[in-house]
């Protein structure tokens, strides 16, 4: 079977498993966990374009998650707006917050950019405490659910799954077309990217705003799942957690960070002692992966195959095909 056919079969099996999860999940707790992973993934999928592809290390996306979550609680809860409309507005809010954060910070060198995102997350937490009239301060806010049939655990799971699938599809398209190459060029060589005509800041800002939108939507769905949010829901460690999911999953893939998200969310829940370790567990995972499989767990199979088979011996002889070169250079306008 060709790799393509095999990948397609695997993807179909995976999709079927996710779709039917409510039927085979052991109990409601599992369903809750799967929904939580879905809400996180909506954010992480967007963040993946920023961090895994464009190489911009944001550790403060929890701030954008909080913007979406409070936005949803206030719009759908306090103001009684339609939850779906509220969710869309959360996306817009997240996008605007992303724009406001990205504009001044994305020109900074990597370390300072990371610090700016961290500061943003801390400011959002402080604001959610300070603006008690809006956010309920330290007491927090209760968050409404969605109308039937999305008010049942499985109905809600399917809603989150549908949004997550949509966001994944969008990022997959970005990754496989010219934008994906351009983002990786920004990550691996800004000099080469510029020489190809790639506007570094414009592309970084675009994907950052997109990640703000997905964070806003993910935040809204996350809040509704939790049904009650306080400033403590959005501790800074969650921002690190998102970041670590991508790094241990592997940069420049979509499947890797997804696996990372599943592992890092589910493992502490399944293996109870790990939960007590908290952030230590994330740190440990990060260390293990960075030291043992720097390509990320998403590439584990690939890496193992290469290690056991070794690199096949291949030709390195350069043999130009001048007629072919001349003919492609003579093409006038094949730009689509």
């Amino acid at each position, binding site marked *: 079977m060709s790799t393509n056919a095999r990948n397609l079969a695997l993807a179909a099996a995976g999709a079927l498993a996710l779709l039917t999860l409510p039927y085979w999940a052991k109990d409601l707790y599992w369903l809750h966990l799967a929904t939580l992973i879905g809400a996180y993934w909506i954010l992480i999928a967007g963040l993946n374009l920023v961090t895994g592809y464009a190489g911009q290390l944001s550790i403060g996306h929890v701030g954008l998650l909080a913007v979406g979550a409070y936005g949803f609680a206030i719009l759908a809860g306090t103001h009684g707006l339609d939850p779906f409309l509220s969710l869309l507005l959360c996306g817009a809010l997240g996008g605007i917050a992303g724009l406001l954060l990205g504009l001044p910070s994305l020109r900074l060198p990597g370390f300072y950019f990371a610090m700016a995102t961290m500061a943003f997350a801390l400011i959002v937490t402080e604001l959610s405490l300070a603006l008690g009239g809006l956010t309920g301060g330290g007491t927090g806010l209760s968050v409404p659910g969605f109308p039937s049939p999305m008010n049942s655990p499985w109905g809600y799971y399917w809603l989150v799954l549908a949004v997550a699938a949509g966001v994944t599809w*969008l*990022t997959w*398209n*970005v990754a*496989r*077309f*010219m*934008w994906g*190459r*351009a983002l*990786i*060029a920004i990550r*691996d*060589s800004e*000099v*080469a*990217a*510029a*020489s*190809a*005509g*790639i*506007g570094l800041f414009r592309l970084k800002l*675009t*994907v950052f705003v*997109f990640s703000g939108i997905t964070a806003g939507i993910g935040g809204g769905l996350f809040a509704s799942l939790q049904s009650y949010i306080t400033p403590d829901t959005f501790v800074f460690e969650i921002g690190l957690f998102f970041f670590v999911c991508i790094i241990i999953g592997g*940069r*420049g893939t979509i499947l890797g960070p997804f696996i990372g998200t599943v592992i890092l969310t589910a493992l502490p829940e399944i293996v109870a002692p790990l939960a007590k370790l908290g952030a230590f567990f994330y740190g440990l995972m990060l260390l293990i992966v960075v030291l043992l499989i720097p390509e990320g767990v998403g590439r584990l199979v690939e890496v193992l195959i290469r290690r056991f088979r070794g*690199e096949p011996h*291949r*030709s*390195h*002889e*350069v*043999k*130009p*095909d*001048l007629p*072919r*070169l*001349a*003919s*492609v*250079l*003579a*093409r006038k306008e*094949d*730009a*689509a």
Partner: protein
Amino acid sequence: MSALEAVSVTKRFGGLVALSDVSLDLRPGEVHGLIGPNGSGKTTLLNMLSGYYRPDGGRTSLDGEELDALSVQRRARLGIARTFQKPRLLPALSVLDNAMLGCWRDTRAGFVETAFALPRARREEKAFRDRAIELVHGVGLGHALTRSAGLLEHAEQRFLEIARALAARPRFLLLDEPAGGLTGAEIEHLGRIVGTVRESGIGVLLVEHHTDFVFRICGRVTTLDRGRLIKHGTPDEVRRDPEVVRVYLGA
């Protein structure tokens, strides 16, 4: 007159004068050699033409229009492509993907069109893939099309950089020591590729230390020494120039 020009450019790095009052014009359909000892300012001049540095004196222009205010990206879009003295590829991507990166200049599909896989994004992807495949085979890397660029040998990296630059359909191609580290046979291949590029109407600036190679394939040669232009002319004129012999070619 259509040309890429540096007119009396000067460039200082702190106290060091890397270029002093140097002029050079690159015309379509010519191979123009740029030679000189290490540190004489060749790469600096190339960086100035491609927009990485602004001149401290003088100016750069394309078809008579001043370029100095334009970014590297704008110049790339105007048709100035280059390679690097130390190849700068994307090791995580395949050879084909690296070559396709050059097609960014022609990419019109924006983020939203791309994210929703709208027809223009798909159409461009197909056209660019096709163009890049032809170029990769053209420069002699057909055997490595799907190989990760991180696994390429030195010569392959140099040729891939040329394919990537050509994918941008440039009017002018600036090559910084493309023969550096190549074997004799590979330099022959490079010479034929440069010849084919020139015949297509592209103007090639060739920064090189392999002077035999330069004198053989260039129509004109400019020689720098410590940031000054010491001789400009046909290969024969430059080869016989006493000062060029003294500072660079040796007896």
